[in-house]
C-alpha cells in the first residue's frame, strides 16, 4: 500500500492511503444532444439576424417590432449558450473513479451538486458489464453494475466509455485489494502469535 498522504488530493473525501488507479467521465453521447441543440439555435439566431436586417423587411416593418424580436432572440440565445457550456463543464466534473480501495461515483456540478457515492472493494459482491444496442456497440459505451455487500444493492454506472476496460480494472483492483487485506490479516495474526509466545 501507498505511504504518501493522498488526503483530498484528487477528489474531496480521498483517504490518506488511497491511490487513484484510473478515472473516466461519461461517454460524450450524454452531451451530444446539448451540442446539437447549440448548433441548431446558432443557425436559428443567424437566420433571425439576417431576416431582421434584410432591407425589404426593415422597410415594411416598424423598427420597434424588429428590436423587440431581436431582443427576445438575444435573451433566449444568451440563456441557451450559457446553459450548454455549463452542461459541458458539468460533464467534465462528473467522474467515475477507481481507486485501490473503492469505486467512487463523483456527481459534481458547477453550482448545485456535490454527491459522492462510493463502494468499497471488499463490499463488492459482483461486478457486471453490459453493452446492448447498436449505438453502444459502435460508440463503445455501456453500463457497469456493482452489486454491493450483504444487502445486495445494485449500483449502476451509466454511459461508461470503454466499459470492458473499466470492468477489468475494477476486478483487478478488487483482487489486489483482497490479497492485500489477506496479507494484512495474516501479518497481524502472526504478530499476535509472536506476542503470545513472548
Amino acid at each position, binding site marked *: 500500500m501507498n505511504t504518501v498522504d493522498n488526503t483530498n488530493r484528487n477528489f474531496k473525501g480521498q483517504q490518506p492511503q488511497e491511490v487513484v488507479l484510473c478515472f473516466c467521465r461519461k461517454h460524450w453521447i450524454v452531451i451530444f444532444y446539448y451540442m446539437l441543440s447549440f448548433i441548431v439555435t446558432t443557425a436559428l439566431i443567424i437566420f433571425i439576424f439576417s431576416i431582421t436586417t434584410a432591407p425589404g423587411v*426593415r422597410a415594411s416593418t416598424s423598427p420597434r417590432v424588429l428590436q423587440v424580436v431581436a431582443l427576445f432572440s438575444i435573451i433566449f440565445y444568451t440563456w441557451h449558450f450559457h446553459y450548454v457550456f455549463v452542461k459541458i463543464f458539468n460533464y467534465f466534473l462528473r467522474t467515475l473513479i477507481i481507486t485501490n480501495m473503492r469505486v467512487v461515483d463523483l456527481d459534481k456540478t458547477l453550482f448545485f451538486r456535490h454527491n459522492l457515492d462510493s463502494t468499497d472493494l471488499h463490499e463488492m459482491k459482483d461486478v457486471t458489464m453490459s453493452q446492448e444496442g447498436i449505438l453502444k456497440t459502435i460508440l463503445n459505451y455501456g453500463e457497469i453494475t456493482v452489486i454491493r455487500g450483504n444487502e445486495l444493492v445494485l449500483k449502476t454506472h451509466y454511459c461508461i466509455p470503454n466499459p470492458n476496460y473499466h470492468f477489468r480494472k475494477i476486478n483487478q483492483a478488487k483482487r489486489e485489494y483482497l490479497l492485500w487485506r489477506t496479507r494484512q490479516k495474516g501479518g497481524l495474526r502472526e504478530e499476535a502469535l509472536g506476542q503470545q509466545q513472548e
Partner: protein
Amino acid sequence: MTTLWIIFIFLHVVSLLFAIFALWRLYEYIKRYRFDESKYTMLFGFVHLHWIAAAYLVYAVIWTVASTILFITLNQ
C-alpha cells in the same frame, strides 16, 4: 435611452458576469483536485477542459459584440 436598450445592457452585463463567475468556480475546483488527463479521459479523446473554458469566455465576448452591432443596426 429606451427600455429595450436598458434590458439589452443589463442582459449582457449579467451574461458576462455569469461567465466569469462560472469559470472562477470551475478553476477553483480543478486547481484543488487535479487528475492526470489522458486521451482516454478528454472529450472526444482530444478536447481539453481548458479549451472549452477559453472558448466559453471568447464566445461570451463575441456574442456581446455581435448582438450589440445588430441592435445598433436596427436602431438606425
